[in-house]
Each structure stands twice: as structure tokens, then as C-alpha cells.
């Protein structure tokens, strides 16, 4: 039986992802764990996350998960969600500026500074909270069966700008275009919460449970 490890670093509602995976996949064993050995043994790995990047990085380092994440993100099908996506990038403006894991190149910015950069008034409230549409910037096995411009549930105050080299696999607009999905090789990471996005979200998770990590 295949195993999917959901990395548990004690923040927020991490179990939602596990419950949603169990709902779409009865062939895999879903483990919520911070045991490096168990994460290394898993066939697929999910890095979920809500909350603040400082706490997130502090907990990942305290549990000595940063090295493990770098290791498994090299070859296993790897799904990052929300803060779990932002943590994969180089650095974040949050909490006065924080180095993140640096698995993928990219900076995480606050919406306020993003809007200021392009000289626009905020299009609405921050956090960007609720349902918005995602344009599929390029084909990907995890988009299979999901209509372009499907709605997904977001909640975040920091965002990832559009990235170079085709890393942006999904784009959403909130005053400005930002990266809703970053993907490279075996890594697919979403700013939105697939586990809270009803049909389209469950479809994406189901695709992940079948994905071999190639594109």
C-alpha cells in the first residue's frame, strides 16, 4: 500500500488535508507525521500550512524537517499548500523578512507592497479571503479533469509574484496577477486550499494521489 505523508509541524488545521486525501484515496495510507524516517519512507509528501512564516520556519527547523523536505522534494511527488507553498520559496517579506526553505527560487511579498509597486489602490480587503478563479498557465497532470478558471478557496495576506522559467503553473488575479500554483518537476504547490475547495479541490488531490511526479 502506498503511503502519503502529511508533514505535521504543529500549526493550524493540518488534519483537513489528511481528511480530504482519505476521502479521495482509499488505496493509500495517509500518515500525519513529523518523523523524518516516516517522511523519507513515504511515496508522496504533502507540506500543508496556515499561519505565519516565522512560526512555520521555526517549527520546521526545531523538528529538523528542513533537511528532510529538501531531500524528499528532489524526487518524490510533493504537494505544498498555502504557507506550505510559500515556505518552499527563497524568502518572505513576512515578519520583517524571513529566509524560507529555498527549494524553489522566488520571493513572497505582502499584498500591500505589491499593490504599491504597481501603483494601484487595493482592490479589496487583505487577507485575500474567499473563492477566486485560477487560470491554468500550462498543462500539468494535476490539472487533469479540472476546468480552466475553476474556483478555489484562498486565504492569505502574502503572495508570490509571477515567476520566471515556467515555474508559475496557475495564475489568479487580485488587483494584480499572482502565482496561484508553482510547479517544477515533481513539485506542485498551491496558494489556495484544495482541501477546502469542494469538487475542484478534491479532484486536484485525487490527481496528486495518482501522480508519479513526472510532467
Amino acid at each position, binding site marked *: 500500500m502506498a503511503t502519503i505523508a502529511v508533514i505535521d509541524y504543529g*500549526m*493550524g*488545521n493540518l*488534519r*483537513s488535508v489528511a*481528511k*480530504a486525501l482519505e*476521502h479521495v484515496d482509499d488505496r493509500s495510507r495517509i500518515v500525519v507525521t513529523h518523523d523524518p524516517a516516516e517522511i523519507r519512507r513515504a511515496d508522496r509528501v504533502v507540506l500543508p500550512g*496556515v*499561519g*505565519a512564516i516565522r512560526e512555520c520556519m521555526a517549527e520546521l527547523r526545531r523538528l529538523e524537517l528542513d533537511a528532510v523536505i529538501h531531500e524528499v522534494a528532489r524526487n518524490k511527488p510533493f504537494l505544498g499548500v498555502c504557507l506550505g507553498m510559500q515556505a518552499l520559496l527563497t524568502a518572505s517579506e513576512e515578519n520583517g523578512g524571513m529566509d524560507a526553505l529555498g527549494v524553489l527560487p522566488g520571493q513572497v511579498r505582502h499584498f500591500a507592497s505589491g499593490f504599491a509597486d504597481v501603483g494601484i489602490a*487595493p*482592490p*479589496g*480587503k*487583505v*487577507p*485575500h*479571503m*474567499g*473563492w*477566486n*478563479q485560477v*487560470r491554468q498557465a500550462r498543462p500539468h497532470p494535476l490539472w487533469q479533469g479540472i*476546468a480552466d*478558471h*475553476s*474556483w478555489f*478557496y*484562498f*486565504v*492569505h*495576506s502574502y503572495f508570490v509574484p509571477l515567476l520566471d522559467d515556467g515555474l508559475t503553473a496557475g495564475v*489568479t*488575479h*487580485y488587483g494584480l496577477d499572482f502565482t496561484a500554483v508553482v510547479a517544477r518537476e515533481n513539485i506542485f504547490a498551491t496558494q489556495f*486550499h484544495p*482541501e*477546502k*475547495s*469542494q*469538487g*475542484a*479541490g*478534491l479532484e486536484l488531490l485525487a490527481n496528486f494521489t495518482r501522480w508519479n511526479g513526472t510532467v
Partner: protein
Amino acid sequence: MTLAKRIIPCLDVDEGRVVKGVKFLDIRDAGDPVEIARRYDQAGADEITFLDITASSDERETLVQVVEAVAAEVFMPLTVGGGIRTPADIRRMLNAGADKVGINTAAIHNPEFVREAAERFGSQCIVVAIDAKRVNGDDEPPRWEVFTHGGRRQTGIDAVEWARRMADLGAGEILLTSMDRDGTREGFDLALTRAVSDAVTIPVIASGGVGGLQHLVDGVVEGGADAVLAASIFHFGEYTVAEAKAFMAGQGVAVRRQEET
């Protein structure tokens, strides 16, 4: 492509059962939170809110089981309010599968609780619920105060100032209920909604008074709300969530409609 305005059905839960009857067509058990949540999920609700009205704290543990059961089957954002007083209460609800918790009276007793909760669990999961009531006459510029105990106890706190302070302390969202309008079906208190929405940079959910679909539109367009909470118009089957969204879309409000996905 834009952020949709949200429609949030609210369910009152007492000792683990939904009360104030939900009267959907052909529902088997109108008190079962899981079945009702599933139905709202299928109907296209954007989130769901459970408000625990259980009087005795001994029975509160049943709500944890309700949240667990709902979260195992319904994959949409879930907010739980009522009786949230300590970080342990929040942790328990988040672990059970809630995405956000509503804090009301505990914030009034100790505003720092909101800061502590936001720092620990993230602003995104801290909803401060404000029950507001107008405290001056119609011939004066309106002023509202925060009330507790179902609108019976006046706190002396200005509601708009309070919303601003809660946002500053780290609240991620304001659930604003007009106690003047709650249960009247006369529509939201739009002046109150607009005053709070303009005062804060975080999303505001309008609540209290919805009696028809135009009220939902008014809450968003005139009140400036980011989301609208309603109970009876959906529970009693007067309107479906899909009808509400079609109506709002027809009035130019951006909503998430399933046929577009």
C-alpha cells in the same frame, strides 16, 4: 477573474443538534449537522458557520464531535463560534477540523486574547464576532455599541471603534451582526455595515435581518460587506443558495457559481 462575494449559511447548534429547524425538501434528519452541511455543500454555499448556543459548558464537547464529523465529509471552509474563551478551545476546534473560530464575549473580557490567538494560530482563523445595536435616535448621526448576552447587555463600547481595534490586534475577519435587525427580515443595517467595512481593512461578514435576496445584494453593494451570512431564508427552503447567487450575479455582484467551473 475576481474574488467572489461569499454566501455563508449559519446553523445554530445546541448539544450537537441543529436547532431552529432546517426545512429542506426531503431532508431525512433536519437536526443532523453533517447532513445539513453536506446539503449546503452541494447547494454551492461558500462556507458554513456553526454557532454553538449550548447553555451548559459540559455539553460543549459535543460540538467538537460535530465539527469532526462534518470536516470528515464536507470540504469547504468551516467556522465555529460560541463559547470560545481560551487558546485551548481554539486548538481543540482547529484540530477537530474547523478553519476559523468566532470570538465574541471573550474578546470583550480580554482584548489581548485576540492578539494572543492571532499570533499563535494565525489571523486567518480568528473571526471576531460583534453584536452591535444602535444607541441613539434617528435624528442624530448613528452610533452603535457592542452588546452581549444576545443583545441584552450594553457594554459602552463603540462598535466601529471596536472593530478597528480588533483588526489592529490581529483579527482576520469581522462577523458583524445587527441586533436591531436580527430576526426581523428587514435587511441588514446597511449604515452599520458600511461604517465598519470602511473602518477596517479586513473582510467583513454582514449578518442579521436577511429576509430576501435583494438584502444580500444591498449588504454587499451598499454595506460594503465581503460576505453575507443568512439563516432562515435558506433553512426554510424559501430560496436556494443557487437562486441567491443567480440573483446577486444579475445585480452585478461577483459570486462563485458552480456552472462556471
